[in-house]
């Protein structure tokens, strides 16, 4: 059964790059454009992993993460923060909120897959055979 990964980012570019990275794997990629949408998708779909941007309109990643950790049904979902900001204070703030890991933009697909692979078991997508 495919692993559900939720990508929460206001940038469609990042969501497409994330989708491209996971394409060879048996992953169902769910998408949300801000924290509010992300919480709704997380509650509905119960993904195995959330990739979460920090700076977003409507609801930012830190607020979404805080709400996620307050929800008994969602707090165990591992979260990897994707952020363009690598400053010490930013990283410390994120760490205090209980993220599994973080990835600083710009990043390579391999780095994303390596960090995701530490949280979930990524299996190559079965190759379709002609009937």
């Amino acid at each position, binding site marked *: 059964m495919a692993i559900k990964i939720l990508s929460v980012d206001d*940038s469609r570019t990042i969501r497409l790059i994330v989708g491209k990275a996971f394409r060879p794997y048996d992953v169902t990629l769910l998408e949300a454009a801000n924290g509010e949408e992300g919480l709704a998708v997380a509650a509905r779909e119960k993904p195995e992993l959330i990739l979460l941007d920090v700076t977003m309109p409507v609801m930012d990643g830190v607020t979404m993460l805080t709400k996620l950790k307050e929800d008994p049904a969602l707090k165990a979902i591992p979260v990897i923060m994707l952020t*363009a900001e690598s400053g010490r204070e930013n990283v410390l703030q994120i760490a205090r909120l209980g993220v599994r890991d973080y990835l600083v933009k710009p990043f390579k697909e391999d780095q994303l897959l390596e960090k995701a692979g530490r949280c979930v078991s990524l299996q190559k997508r079965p190759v379709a055979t002609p009937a």
Partner: protein
Amino acid sequence: MSQTIQIPNICEFMTRHFVDVFETMLSMKTQMVTQAGLPQFEDRVTGSVAFAGEHVNGAVYLHFGTVFAGQVAAAMLGLEPADLGEAEVNDVVGEVTNMLTGGLKSWLCDSGAECAVSTPAIIRGSSFVIEPVPDVLREWLVFDCQQNRVIVEIHVKVG
């Protein structure tokens, strides 16, 4: 606040960071062009992200020629330029500008000048100039990338 937050330091950091962003996300080699006049673009796509804090504020503008912006977007998304619409190109330019400014924000914060950044905005046009408000310094960094010119324009007010 640290004394190192000065225009030359910001430009030095942004030059390194620009090269890193292009190489990591686009696998594109870039080189800063010194003693270059500002290139004139016929049509331009410009990304902008502002930053603001108690001790520093300003904005980063990233200027691409329209055709090269499409090539950059295609490289980032692994698609052909012909398959991309204006919205996709705008989003990629905004995201690259966001990565550049996010790096600058981290550098500023680590140097003692806490600040926040805006979400990206896009300007498209053929003949426009972005004028800084009084007391704001402006610097241009010009880069060569696959025989195309890219400009990073930095507006900053320290103190």
